[in-house]
């Protein structure tokens, strides 16, 4: 299990290759990557991600541990960036390895659903001189009822 919270960019390809390498006992690897999205309407210049150092790592570790308890997993990786990002930049990724594909998929979805509303990150969007905090979505809170 590896939990990384960093300002620097990460290399999705290198991380995915390292994560999948040598897994002779795991048939399935799932990755999810979150990318800064520039909605046509928003004209986004940048996204700023604030977090709560210390609690962030603890919350992500707790969520990943919960995933390992609930599914048969070989490994879990979570990388989340903070600071100023531009449209197209990678924000974060999770990866799961499991003997069976359903476990790998479900655990990755679980990690994402919990990470969205239970890890202390906040996004602020800067568009054409204006800026505003991204509001939490009811559907993200509702997503937790699946688990």
């Amino acid at each position, binding site marked *: 299990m590896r939990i990384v919270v960093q300002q620097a960019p990460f290399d999705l390809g290198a991380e995915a290759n390292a994560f999948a390498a040598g897994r002779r006992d795991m048939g399935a690897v799932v990755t999810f990557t979150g990318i800064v999205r520039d909605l046509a309407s928003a004209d986004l210049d940048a996204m700023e991600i604030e977090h*709560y150092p210390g609690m962030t790592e603890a919350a992500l570790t707790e969520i990943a541990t919960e995933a390992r308890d609930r599914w048969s997993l070989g490994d879990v990786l979570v990388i989340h960036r903070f600071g100023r990002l531009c449209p197209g930049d990678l924000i974060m990724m999770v990866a799961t390895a499991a003997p069976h594909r359903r476990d790998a998929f479900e655990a990755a979805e679980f990690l994402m659903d919990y*990470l*969205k509303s239970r890890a202390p990150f906040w996004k602020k969007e800067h568009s054409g001189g204006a800026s505003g905090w991204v509001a939490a979505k009811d559907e993200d809170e509702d997503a937790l009822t699946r688990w």
Partner: protein
Amino acid sequence: MDVLYFAWVRERIGLPKERVETQAATVADLVEELRAREARYAAAFADLSALRVAVDQKLTGFDAPLDGAREVAFFPPMTGG
């Protein structure tokens, strides 16, 4: 104890962290004390349903006791991922 503010709570109050001397028994009691201080606090804590709280870096409710707590943080609902 240390009181931390994040995102628009931090912006509204105007600082990320402060030392608060308090005898407040619960988070809700602490919020009452802070609200009474100045308009910017009253504004930040106007609607508790728009806020979340962590005591010693654990998410909790506003009825949580502060007995022995070293760090309380207030922030809006999280938007990671």
